[in-house]
């Protein structure tokens, strides 16, 4: 076990996959500057700084993916994905289908998002749900260091386009990275803590919020199960439904805005497939439907807090 930042775990994943497969390349505004060691290891051909133009970076990745390379692109902050939506949604997501299966698009898009740096809504906007609502794409958003490494490796090996979102609040957090990490695959949720009374469902930074809430609840005699979605598309419906069928109560937590977020999808799945088991209303604790402010206390107020999760779970217990 090695103690390191999430950023370093991401680096390891890139390093290992680039070493394993010569068709993996890395492109982005500053990747060759910031990940100089990868240039040293794999050369300037495979680690490329780009012009400042997200659309063509993404388009280049899509074109390259269809013709033999496995590009990983770093588009920096999630709001910048707005400049690459055509390439990601209309090309990467649809051209396999529209061509009758002639092409596949093994590529990974990395982007940071979320509160923590007081940079405001043009750098901090959790748009992962957009891509869950776009066909042909997969969406991964890890909550812990092992998943950052393991799921990035899985995303690179996946033959489909994968959006890999990195929660800003976690980038420089440190933790122990497991040695002998098992091979992971995209699409599986994890039950982080087993419980009987209520299921707390979340992803990314709010995974930690839910684990803290579960501890607090435990001390109050409430047994909470904690489900970490890990992959937002395709969603692991089975794990979600099984947990809530067991506990009968669900609190869904994420930082992204509420309306049409991933939490809405989870709640809908529960309303459809766990209706009989639900002993209380489903509750969502989500970011408000407002842009993310820069001011520190406002940014904090945007993010779901442990207290709110604990309070919601207690209310559900009646």
């Amino acid at each position, binding site marked *: 076990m090695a103690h390191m930042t999430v950023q370093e775990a991401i680096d390891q994943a890139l390093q290992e996959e680039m070493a394993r497969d010569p068709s993996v390349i890395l492109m982005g505004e500053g990747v060759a500057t910031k990940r100089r060691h990868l240039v040293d290891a794999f050369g300037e051909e495979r680690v490329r700084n780009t012009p400042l*133009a997200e659309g063509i970076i993404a388009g280049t990745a*899509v074109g*390259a993916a269809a*013709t033999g*390379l496995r590009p990983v692109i770093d588009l920096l902050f999630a709001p910048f994905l707005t400049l690459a939506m*055509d390439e990601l949604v209309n090309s990467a997501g649809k051209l396999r289908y529209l*061509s*009758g299966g002639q092409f596949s698009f093994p590529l990974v898009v990395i982007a940071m998002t979320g509160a923590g740096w007081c940079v405001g809504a043009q750098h901090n906007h959790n748009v992962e749900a957009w891509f869950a609502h776009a066909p042909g794409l997969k969406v991964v958003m890890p909550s812990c260091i092992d998943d950052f490494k393991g799921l990035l490796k899985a995303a690179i090996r996946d033959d489909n386009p994968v959006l890999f979102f990195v929660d800003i609040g976690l980038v420089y957090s440190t933790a122990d990275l497991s040695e002998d990490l098992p091979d992971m695959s995209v699409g599986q949720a994890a039950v982080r803590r087993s419980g009987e009374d209520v299921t707390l469902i979340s992803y990314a930074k709010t995974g930690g919020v839910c684990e803290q809430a579960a501890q607090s609840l435990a001390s109050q005699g409430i047994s909470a199960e904690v489900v970490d979605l890990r992959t937002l598309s395709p969603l692991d419906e089975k794990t979600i439904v099984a947990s809530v069928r067991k506990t009968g109560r669900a609190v869904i937590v994420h930082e992204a805005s509420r309306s049409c977020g991933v939490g809405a999808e989870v709640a809908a799945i529960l309303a459809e497939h766990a209706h009989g088991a639900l002993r209380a209303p489903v509750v969502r604790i989500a970011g408000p439907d407002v842009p993310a402010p820069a001011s520190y206390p406002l940014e904090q107020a945007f993010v779901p807090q442990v207290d709110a999760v604990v309070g919601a779970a207690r209310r559900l217990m009646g």
Partner: protein
Amino acid sequence: MGIRRYEGRPDELLQAMLLIRHYEERTAALQAESGVPGTCTAVGQEAAAVGVVSALDEHDLILTNHRSAGHLLARGADPGRMLAEVMGRRGGYCGGKSGSLHISAKELGVVLTSTIVGGELALATGVGLSQKMLRRQGVVVCFFGDGAACEGRFHESLNLAAVWQLPILYVCENNQWQAFVHRRETMVNDSIAAFAAPHGIDSAAVDGNDVMAVRAVATEALDAIRVSGRPFLLETRTYRLRGHFEPDDQSYVDPAELASWRQRDPLPRLQARMLESGQVTAAGLTDMDADARRQIDTAVAFAVDSPFPDADALLTDVYA
């Protein structure tokens, strides 16, 4: 049918142009008469397509757009499978899922067709990067319209191709129209080739209705790219003689402009030149025309016979 090779003889080029012309007019007629889905035809632009495609070798790759029939047919596509695709039939190049707007045919090196205007420009650099990094032969040819040159992606693509030295022949088919907007309404200057220089790219503009001229300049450009590994921008100046998307009564088109370009129709122009120089007889021309028409008859029969996809095709080909 595989990739079509050309020696560059006028009769070969004429034959390809006739096939395209009959294909396009037949799809338009089928739309009008039988409610077959509409298409973006490229009637009047056959020389631009055939001039460039006939200059390619079998390793070269093509990216195209909504107005792709000329490029595909010139490359050797089976008009039957094309029409089947237009009609949404299983026998189409994409199994009917594409329809006319994004027909790719990987077997012909026609990859990643996009009907998002400028879409192919964003993808071309990636294809060029694969060619370069995987040390493959073959230039990437990216066809796009004058309208696509208004999208910022055009510049982003040229710039990246220049910086990374990617083997891409950009071909702007400047047909003077962008759906229902005249090119003049969308740019101050008349030259699209002129956008190349500030990006550090060589360029040329050519009379796009003169197939031999197009072929000559395309050949030169391709040779240059094969040597230098650098991109090149070729502007073919031509005209969209039919409307944007069938049906289209062209009521918004200045009749004088249309008439003047009808005078420059690339087919009669090539035919006249061939007659003049004795490369063909009048009877020979009639035969060639009839032959192209027959091929389209066969194609229609194939397409009409091709079944629609099964319902479960709705859910396939989404993920690899």
